[in-house]
């Protein structure tokens, strides 16, 4: 039970706004000690796990490309393109992106999208521009809200689409896990039972994105 102190440190550290990297390291050390691990083992685990999980940082390889394109007007061009589509509103654009992201993920095309690859350079500027074209200059608060919702569309889309793809790692993890209990399941069976949730996720989040248009309109009218 003492090992749960690590969890307490994480929650408290994040809530008290200490630097998360430091919080995580302290929590790790405390958990390790509470769990009876030697200092040496703790250090080795830190190093080993850090190296094994380097793939989590591969997004930095997209940055030179995105940076170069932004320097040469990528965001501005995104806004010009959106300006030409009369029916484009922030909400509709993000609902469309949510749909594409979730459908592509369900087909195994999880690479189509992503925060560094698509949200920052394309989706967020377009979402902002759709609102700006309609209402004029947006407040910082509103622009940040639109950007946050753009990121949320990517997350909700990929999370609730990917488990419908039968070869996806999560499904294989679950299948393998139950095999140790002697229960054999078909990947398709697991995928199919995910469909109600996947559809619910789309409906719930699309509805909130639809309401975002109303919130933007209200904020801009209040600002007048």
């Amino acid at each position, binding site marked *: 039970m003492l090992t*749960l102190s690590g969890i307490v440190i994480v929650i408290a550290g994040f809530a008290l706004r200490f*630097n998360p990297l430091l919080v*995580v390291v302290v929590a790790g050390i405390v958990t390790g000690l509470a769990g009876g691990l030697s200092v040496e083992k703790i250090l080795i685990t830190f190093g*080993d796990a850090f190296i094994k999980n380097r793939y989590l940082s*591969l997004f930095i*390889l997209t940055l*030179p490309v995105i940076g170069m394109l932004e320097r040469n007007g990528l*965001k501005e061009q995104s806004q010009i393109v959106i300006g030409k589509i009369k029916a484009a509103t922030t909400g509709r654009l993000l609902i469309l992106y949510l749909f594409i992201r979730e459908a592509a993920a369900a087909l195994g095309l999880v690479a189509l999208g992503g925060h560094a690859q698509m949200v920052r350079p394309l989706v967020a500027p377009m979402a902002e521009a759709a609102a700006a074209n309609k209402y004029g200059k947006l407040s910082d608060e509103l622009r*940040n809200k639109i950007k946050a919702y753009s990121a949320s569309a990517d997350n909700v889309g990929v999370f609730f689409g990917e488990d419908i793809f039968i070869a996806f790692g999560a499904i294989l993890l679950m299948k393998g896990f139950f095999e140790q209990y002697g229960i054999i399941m078909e990947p398709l069976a697991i995928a199919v039972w995910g469909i109600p949730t996947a559809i619910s996720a789309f409906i719930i989040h699309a509805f909130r994105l639809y309401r975002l248009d109303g919130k933007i309109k209200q904020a801009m009218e209040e600002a007048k």
Partner: protein
Amino acid sequence: MIFSLEYVYYICGILMAIISFLAFKDQSNPKRVLTAIFWGIFAISFLFGKIIPPMYMGVAVIIMAVIAGIGGVRLGSYSQSTEEERTDRAVKFSNWLFVPALLIPIVTIIGTLGLKEVTIAGLALLEKSNITLVSLGLACIVAFIVALSLTKETGLQSAREARRLVDAIGWAAVLPQMLATLGALFALAGVGQAVSTLIGSVIPLDNKFMVVFAYCVGMALFTMIMGNAFAAFPVMTAGIGYPLVVVMHGGNPAVLCAIGMFSGYCGTLMTPMAANYNIVPAALLDLPDKNAVIKAQIPTALVLLTVNVFLMYFLIFR
């Protein structure tokens, strides 16, 4: 194989080394030495990660956290293009600007789906066991070359632009890996067992709804703690899902898995521990509130979790 994941890491390492060097030279950053050391250690982890003994790497990781904790990772100055220049160039390059950006996901998919079995002179072209990641690396190289030839920028300028973006993300760039190390320590210390024992001791075991509720909400909560539903799944399922829902009450395991994992994902939407989905994007989008993405997601996550509990309750005992 010709392209392995290790080569992709070497390229990351070279990029981070250049960024570290540029950070060191940037006089406008009062903490330039600490900032340079931070990114330098990151570069070393990519370049020499397989060679350096894990214990020393562990010490280096702790040093990175300390540097970040004392505010040593700072922004510098960047010779950015002006808004006027960018608008002019947007008109000049028009929709060609989208080509390199879209090449990244497209080439990744081509590699993952199409190039899996391709061999050249008997050697596999791409490392099969990590095909998506290697394809991503390849895609970034291709997009980089196309972007360079389109914009006529220099390689060094692209490194400067990358540095601008990396600095904007800041120490958060390393948070996903750091959280993975915490996950490893939790696993070794048996945190999972402690949590499921705790939950198992408070729920009324013969109530079908409560057991389903405990499993789904437990998945969400434990995912919020671990930052990762895959880490929560074995613990929650072994502790509650399998013994109580499947064995004791005869629930369908396929339903348990599918809806259980999705309940975990509801947790992922709400936790700063899922740094690469919630915190890094907030930094990447220059949001002053690091939790802004989470805040935009919480209502969806809570409603969906509720829906999940009822879906599981009505579907699992057929």
